[in-house]
C-alpha cells in the first residue's frame, strides 16, 4: 500500500503543479457562489430566476 501511496501522491502533486502552470490564474481564489446569480455553492441559479 505504501508504494501505491507514493505513486498517487507524486502523480497528484505533478498534476496539481502542471495544471497550475499551464492554466490561467483567476487571481484571488474563488468559488462559483462568488459569481452573480449563483444560488448555491456550485453556482446553480435560483429557482425564481428561471
Amino acid at each position: 500500500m505504501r508504494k501505491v501511496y507514493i505513486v498517487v501522491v507524486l502523480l497528484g502533486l505533478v498534476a496539481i503543479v502542471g495544471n497550475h502552470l499551464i492554466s490561467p490564474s483567476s487571481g484571488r481564489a474563488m468559488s462559483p457562489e462568488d459569481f452573480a446569480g449563483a444560488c448555491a455553492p456550485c453556482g446553480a441559479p435560483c429557482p425564481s430566476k428561471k
Partner: protein
Amino acid sequence: MSTAALSTPDTRAGVSVDRLFLGLALIATAILLALVLLDGQPASAALIVGGFGLGIAFLKAEFSYTASWRRFLTRGEAGGLLGGLIVIAICALAVVPVAALRQNFGGAIAPLGPSLLIGAFTFGIGMQLANGCGSGTLYTVGGGSGRMLIALLFFVIGSVFGSLSLPSFLALGGIDPILASDYLGPWGGLAATLASIAVAAALIVAVAKRRGANYMPSRNYIIGGIAIGLLCVEVFAAGGHPWSVTYGYTIWGAKIFSALGYDFSHANFWQWPGNKQALTSSVLSDTSSLTDFGMLFGAMAAAAATKPFAATAWPPLKSLLAAGVGGLLMGWGARLGFGCNIGAFVGGVASGSLHGWVWFAAALPGCLIGIRLRPLFGLSRD
C-alpha cells in the same frame, strides 16, 4: 541520508515517525504554499494552512460524522452528533453576522427542492457504505487508508456525473434559499441559528436518554469539535465562504475527464459562470480544492508523525467494492444536494440557511438504508 533510511520508520520512545511520508506531506504543502504565494495570494495560502490544520484536528480527534451518525441510529449514542453541533455553533458565531454585514463574505445557501432531498438521501446511503463522508474521506485518505483511496476515486467520478445530472433535477422545481438573517437581521439570524442548534441538541439528547444510551461527547469530540469549529472560522475568513469539500472533487474530476477528451461545452452545469471559469483556471484558484489539498497533507503529516504510514494490508474485495459504490453515491449525491455534511450541513446550518437542516433530515434516512446494506459488503452495522 540514504533511501533505505528514509523509507524506514524511525522509532523512539514508543512513537514511530515515518520520515518518508512526513517529509512528503511537508514538502508537498510547502510547494503548494510557494505556488500561491508566488501568485501574490496570501488568502489562498491561509486556506491551505487552514485545511492542513483541519486534517490534523480530524485525524487526532478521530472525528467521524459517519460513525457518529451510525452510532446514533443503531444504538442511540449522541455524543458524536453533539460534537458535530459544537463545530456548527462555533462556525455560526462568525458566519451569520459577518456574511450579513460585510461585503465579499457570504454564507452557504441553496435552493430547497427535490434535488436537495434526493441528493442528501443518496449521500447518506453512500457515506455509510464508504464509511466516510466528505471530510472523512479526505482525512482517512490522508491518514493512509488504501480503502478510502478507492472511495475518493469514485467520489470524484460520481461528482462529475452529478454535475451532469443536476440541471435536470433542478428543473423539477424548488424554492429560493431561506436565510435566517434575511428575515431577522444579522443578530436575530444568529440567535435563531443558535436556537435551532440548541433545539436539535435537545432532541438528540432526548432520543439518547429514551434509548438508555450515552449522550455525552467524549473528550476527543469536545476538543476536536472546538478546534475544527475555530478552523472553520479561519477558512471562512480566508475564503469568504464557509468551508466546503466536494466542489473541489467535481473540479478535479472534470479536469481529468477534459484531459481525456470529454467535452463539457454542452453540459449546462459547466456553462454557469463560476464553473466555466473554474474548469479552465488553475486548480489552485478554487477555494474548495485549496482546503482539500491542505487537509490531505495535514492528515498525512499527522499520521506519519506517530506511526508507520499506510502499513496495513488491503481490505477484502467486498469492502473495496463498498468503498467504490459508496464513493460514487456520495459524489452524485453531493452535487444534487449542494454539498456534503460539511458544505451543506455544517456550512448551511452555520450560515442560518434552512437547507442545512433539510439536508440533515434527508441524509439521516439515507444513512439508515446504508447501514442496512453494509452487511452485504461484509461490513458490520455498528
